[in-house]
C-alpha cells in the first residue's frame, strides 16, 4: 500500500517537474511585469473614478489621457490633450468661462479622432449623473461647473456658475480623464432610456426636491457603473487586453498613442519643453536652454504591461528575486528590512525617495486645554522628534516640520517657525524644552497645583512635576487621552504616542495613551469626534488646497477632515483665497501665509515620515528614479520604461 502510494506521488512529482521546465519557454522578453498587492476592481471608467484605490488607478492611468497633466519632477501643470494653457477665466453673463484648444491629430485606439465633443460628453455626463467620489468630485464639482461646451472640433468651453480658483479649475476640472463619446453615448442613452427627474433643480428649491433629485441620480449612476467596457477605445499608451480575475491584468501597447516618440525635457532653470518629431513644439515655465535635469523620449517601448497580483509583500519580493516580476508597486514601498535584504541581489536595484505621506498629531480644539494655542505650542516644544527618529527608531523615520513636503518645491515654504528648536535650527535639549514649555504655559496663565513649577532635575534627567497643570481659571486639566494605533500594528506611530505621553506627564499634564484598532480609531476621531488628541497619517497633494480642507471651519462637521474643529477666522479667509486664487503668482503667497499660520498655531503637529523604498529589476531602464513619491506615485512609468 505504501509503496504504491509512493510511486503515485513520485509520478505526479515527475510530471510537475517537467512542467516546471516547460514554463520557461513561454517568456516574451519585451513585457513589463509589474507586481501589485491586490486585485483591481473590474469597474468601468465611470465607476473606477468614484471609488478607486491605488491599484485601480495604477492599471487605469496608462490607458487614459487628460486635458492637462503634471510635469516630471516639478509637478507643474502642463497641457496634455490640450494644445496650450487654458484661457483666463472671464465673466460671461452670470457665469465664468474659460476656453481650451485641443491638440490636432490625437486619435483614439480605434483610430477615430479625439475631439472637443469627447471632452464635453465626459464632463456633462458626470454632472448629469451627479457622479461623486474620489476623482469625480474634483473633476465635475456641480457646485461650480455647470456645463462644458464643444465650440468646434478642437475648442472646449468650460462654464462655471461661480468663479472657481486654480484649485477647482486647473487643478480640478482640467485634470479630468476623457472618455470616448462615440463608444459611450449610445450605451449611456440606452441605460437611462425612460428615466425622468434627472434635471438639476433651481438653486432655491425645496430640500425634498433635492433629495428626490439625488435619489434619481444615484439610481442612474448605478446603471452607468454597470455598463460593459469591452473594447472601449482609449487614448493612453496602453489598451486593455486581458484579465484573469485574481491573477493578472494585461495591457497591450496602443499603436495610435499620440505621444509616442515625443521628447520631454526639463531644464535646471525650471523650464519645460516638449517636442514631437515632425510635429509641434511646446515650452513653458522659462526659456528651454542650459543644463538639463532630465530628457527622455516617450514610448511605449514594451509590447505589453502585465499587472500580477501577489497578496503578500514577502511573497512579492520573492517573486522579484526569482525574476517573476520586474517591479513591485506599493504606496508604502518596502519596509527597510526587506529593502536591505535585496540590496545584495545583483539583479535588483533599490531606490529611496521622499514620500507624499506624513504622520501628525491632532488636537481637539473644542476642548480645554487644547483650545489654547499656548498649550499646543507647549506640547510641540516638548515633543522631541529628532530623539525619536534618530535614537529610538534609528532612522526608520525622519522628522517633518511642514505639511507641504520639501520635495514639492513649487509650494513648500522653507524656514517656517518651529517649536522646540533653537534660533540656529538645532533641536533643543530636554532641559531647554521643559524650560521653554513652562515659560509658554506660565505666560498664558497656567499654573500647577501645589504652587510648584516643574523644574529640570539634572541628576535624573527628568522634569519631575509634583503638581498637575491648572487651567488659567484654576481648574485642573482633565485627564487627557492620546489615541493611537497599537504598537503591533504600527510601531512608529505608537512609539511617538508613548513618548509624547511620557514627556507631557513629566511636566504635570495628565495624559494616557489609548491604543485602538484602525477602524475604531477612525470612528472615534473622524466620525464621532470624541477625542482629546490622536496620531494618524495622511497624504499631501500636489496643489496645497488640501491644507484648506484640513483646518477650515466648514470641514469641522462629523466625517469632515477638520476633526479637531479648528476654527480661526484668519485661516478661513486665507482658505477662501486659496480656493479662488487664479494664478500661481496669486496663490503662492496665500499658501505661504497658511503654512506660517499653521506652524504658529499648531492645530496639528507634523511628526515624521518614513520615505519610500522601492525595488526593481536591473533590466528596466527609467529616465530617472529620484522623484517625489517614488516610482509608485507615477505608477511605474509604463509608457516610458524600456527593457534592456
Amino acid at each position, binding site marked *: 500500500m505504501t509503496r504504491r502510494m509512493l510511486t503515485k506521488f513520485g509520478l505526479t512529482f515527475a510530471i510537475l517537474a517537467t512542467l516546471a521546465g516547460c514554463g520557461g519557454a513561454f517568456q516574451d522578453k519585451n513585457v513589463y511585469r509589474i507586481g501589485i498587492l491586490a486585485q483591481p476592481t473590474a469597474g468601468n471608467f465611470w465607476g473606477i473614478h468614484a471609488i478607486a484605490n491605488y491599484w485601480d488607478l495604477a492599471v487605469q492611468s496608462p490607458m487614459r489621457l487628460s486635458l492637462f497633466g503634471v510635469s516630471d519632477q516639478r509637478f507643474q501643470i502642463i497641457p496634455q490633450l490640450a494644445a496650450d494653457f487654458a484661457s483666463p477665466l472671464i465673466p460671461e453673463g452670470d457665469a465664468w468661462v474659460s476656453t481650451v484648444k485641443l491638440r490636432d491629430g490625437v486619435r483614439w485606439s480605434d483610430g477615430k479622432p479625439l475631439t472637443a465633443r469627447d471632452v464635453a460628453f465626459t464632463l456633462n455626463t458626470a454632472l448629469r449623473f451627479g457622479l461623486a467620489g474620489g476623482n469625480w468630485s474634483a473633476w465635475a464639482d456641480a457646485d461650480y461647473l455647470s456645463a462644458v461646451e464643444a465650440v468646434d472640433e478642437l475648442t472646449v468651453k468650460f462654464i462655471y456658475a461661480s468663479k472657481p480658483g486654480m484649485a477647482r479649475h486647473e487643478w480640478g476640472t482640467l485634470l479630468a480623464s476623457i472618455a470616448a463619446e462615440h463608444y459611450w453615448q449610445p450605451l449611456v442613452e440606452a441605460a437611462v432610456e425612460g428615466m425622468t427627474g434627472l434635471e438639476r433643480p433651481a438653486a432655491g428649491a425645496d430640500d425634498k426636491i433635492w433629495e428626490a433629485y439625488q435619489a434619481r441620480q444615484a439610481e442612474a449612476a*448605478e446603471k452607468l457603473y454597470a455598463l460593459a467596457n469591452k473594447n472601449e477605445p482609449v487614448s493612453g499608451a496602453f489598451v486593455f487586453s486581458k484579465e484573469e480575475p485574481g491573477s493578472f491584468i494585461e495591457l497591450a501597447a496602443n499603436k495610435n498613442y499620440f505621444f509616442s516618440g515625443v521628447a520631454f525635457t526639463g531644464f535646471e532653470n525650471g523650464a519645460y519643453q516638449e517636442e514631437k518629431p515632425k510635429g509641434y513644439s511646446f515650452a513653458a515655465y522659462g526659456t528651454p536652454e542650459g543644463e538639463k535635469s532630465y530628457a527622455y523620449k516617450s514610448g511605449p517601448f514594451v509590447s505589453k504591461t502585465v499587472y500580477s497580483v501577489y497578496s503578500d509583500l514577502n511573497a512579492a519580493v520573492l517573486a522579484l528575486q526569482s525574476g517573476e516580476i520586474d517591479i513591485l508597486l506599493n504606496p508604502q514601498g518596502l519596509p527597510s528590512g526587506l529593502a536591505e535584504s535585496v540590496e545584495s541581489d545583483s539583479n535588483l536595484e533599490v531606490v529611496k525617495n521622499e514620500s507624499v505621506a506624513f504622520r501628525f498629531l491632532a488636537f481637539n480644539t473644542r476642548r480645554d486645554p487644547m483650545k489654547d494655542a499656548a498649550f499646543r505650542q507647549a506640547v510641540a516644544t516638548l515633543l522631541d522628534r529628532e530623539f525619536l527618529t534618530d535614537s529610538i527608531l534609528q532612522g526608520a523615520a525622519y522628522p517633518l516640520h511642514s505639511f507641504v513636503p520639501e520635495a514639492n518645491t513649487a509650494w513648500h515654504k522653507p524656514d517656517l517657525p518651529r517649536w522646540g528648536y533653537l534660533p540656529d535650527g538645532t533641536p533643543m535639549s530636554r532641559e531647554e524644552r521643559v524650560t521653554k514649555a513652562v515659560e509658554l504655559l506660565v505666560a498664558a496663565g497656567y499654573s500647577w497645583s501645589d504652587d510648584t513649577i516643574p523644574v529640570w532635575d539634572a541628576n535624573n534627567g527628568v522634569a519631575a512635576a509634583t503638581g498637575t497643570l491648572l487651567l488659567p481659571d484654576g481648574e485642573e486639566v482633565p485627564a487627557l487621552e492620546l489615541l493611537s494605533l497599537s504598537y503591533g500594528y504600527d510601531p512608529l506611530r505608537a512609539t511617538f504616542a508613548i513618548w509624547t505621553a511620557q514627556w507631557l506627564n513629566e511636566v504635570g499634564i495628565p495624559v494616557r495613551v489609548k491604543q485602538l484598532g484602525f477602524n475604531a480609531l477612525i470612528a472615534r476621531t473622524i466620525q464621532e469626534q470624541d477625542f482629546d488628541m490622536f496620531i494618524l497619517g495622511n497624504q499631501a497633494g500636489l496643489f496645497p488646497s488640501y491644507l484648506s480642507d484640513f483646518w477650515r471651519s466648514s470641514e469641522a462637521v462629523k466625517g469632515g477632515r477638520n476633526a479637531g474643529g479648528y476654527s480661526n477666522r484668519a485661516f478661513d479667509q486665507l482658505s477662501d483665497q486659496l480656493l479662488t486664487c487664479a494664478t500661481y503668482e496669486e496663490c503662492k503667497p496665500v499658501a505661504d501665509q497658511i503654512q506660517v499660520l499653521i506652524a504658529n498655531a499648531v492645530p496639528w503637529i507634523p511628526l515624521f515620515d518614513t520615505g519610500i523604498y522601492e525595488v526593481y529589476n536591473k533590466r528596466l531602464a527609467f529616465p530617472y528614479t529620484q522623484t517625489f513619491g517614488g516610482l509608485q506615485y507615477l505608477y511605474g512609468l509604463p509608457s516610458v520604461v524600456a527593457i534592456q
Partner: protein
Amino acid sequence: MPDPRGWKSETVMRRYVVLRLGQIVLTYFLFLVLIYFLLEALPGNFLGALFGESRLTAGQLDALGAQLGLQGSAAERFLQWMGGFLRGDLGISLSQYPRPVMEILAERAPRTLALFLAATLLSFSFGFFAGKILAMRRGTAFETTVTVGGITLYTVFTPWFALWLLWIFAYALRLFPVGKFITYEMWEAGAPDANAVFRHLLLGGLMLAMVAWAVFRRTARLIPARKRAVRTASIAAALLVFCGYWIVTGQAAYVLDILYHMALPVLTLTLISFGGTMLLTRSSMLETMREDYVLLARAKGLPESEIRDRHIARGALLPVVTTLVFSLAFAIGGGVITESIFSWEGMGYTLMEAVTLSDIPLAVGAMAFTGLLVLAAHLAADLLYAFLDPRIRYG
C-alpha cells in the same frame, strides 16, 4: 417491544431529518440577523476607511454615502439587504464597487474549494494513516519521533513556516512558482478562462470522489483478493476518463498548470494540519482498542490486521470523521494566511478584506455562503455518526 434496529427505521430517520432541516432554517436566519448587526456595530464604516486616501470633503462624502446606500439606519439597511437576499441578490460590494457580491463570490469560491478540499483530504488521509500506526506502535522510539514531529509542525507559526517553504521551494530550488494559481505567460489572450477551468476541475474531482465512494460501497462484501482487483480497475478506469476529458478538450496543459501551482500550498497545509488528525486518531484508536467488541474479535481468533482495520479503526473513525466533515465545511472559508502568502485570492482572503474595510454586503454575503455549508456539514456529520456506530440512536 421497540424495534431493536430502531434507528434504521425509515420513519424515525425521516422525522429526525425533517426536524433538523427546520432547525437549520431557523438557525440560518438567526445567524444572518446576528452577523449583519454585529458587523454594523463594529466601529467605523466604509467611508471612514477613505480618510487617508481621498480628497473628499464632508459634503462630498455625504453624496458618496448616498450613492453607496449608506444612509439610513442599520435596520433599514438590513431589511433592504434581506429583501435582496430572498430574491437571490446579495447586493453590491463597497470595496469593489460596483461589482455585485455574487460575482465576487463566484469568482473566488471555486479557487478556495479546490485548494482546501485537496489539502483537507490529503491531510486527513495522511493523519489518519499515521495515527493508526502510532497507536499500534505505542511506546516505541518511532512513536515519540513522529509525535514530536507532528506537534512541532502543528504548532509552528504558520505565516513564517509557509514563507519559508515558499522560499525554499520557489526561490532557492526554483521547483515551484512563487504562489498565484496560474502562470501569466501560459494564459495570455486565447487561453480559456481560469475560473471556468477551476469549476470544471472541481466538478470532475467531485464526480471522481462519488465514483470512488460508490465502488467502495459496492465492493465491500467481496472477498479481499477480488475486492482489490475490482477496486483498482474501477479507479483506474475513472481516472482515465477524467484525464481523457481534459486532453480531448485541449485544456490538459492548463489544468496541469493549475495543479502545479496547487502543489506547494497543499503541501504546506497538509504539513501544518496533519498533526492534529494524527494525534486525534491515535487517541481514539487507543480508546477503542480496549473495547469489549475488540476483545470479542480477538477471542474469535480474527487476524490482527482485520481487527485493526475493521474493528478498531472503524470505531476510531468517529471523532476523526466528525472533524473531517467540519474541516470540509471550513475548507470553503479558506485560510487567510495561506491564501495571502500564496497569493491564492479566495474566500478567506475576501472575508478578511471585507471585514477590515467594513464592506458589509461582501462580508455578509461571504458568510451567508459559508454558513450554509457549515450547517449542511453538521447534518451530514450527524447522519454519518449513526452510520458509523450502530449503537447510536436518535429520537
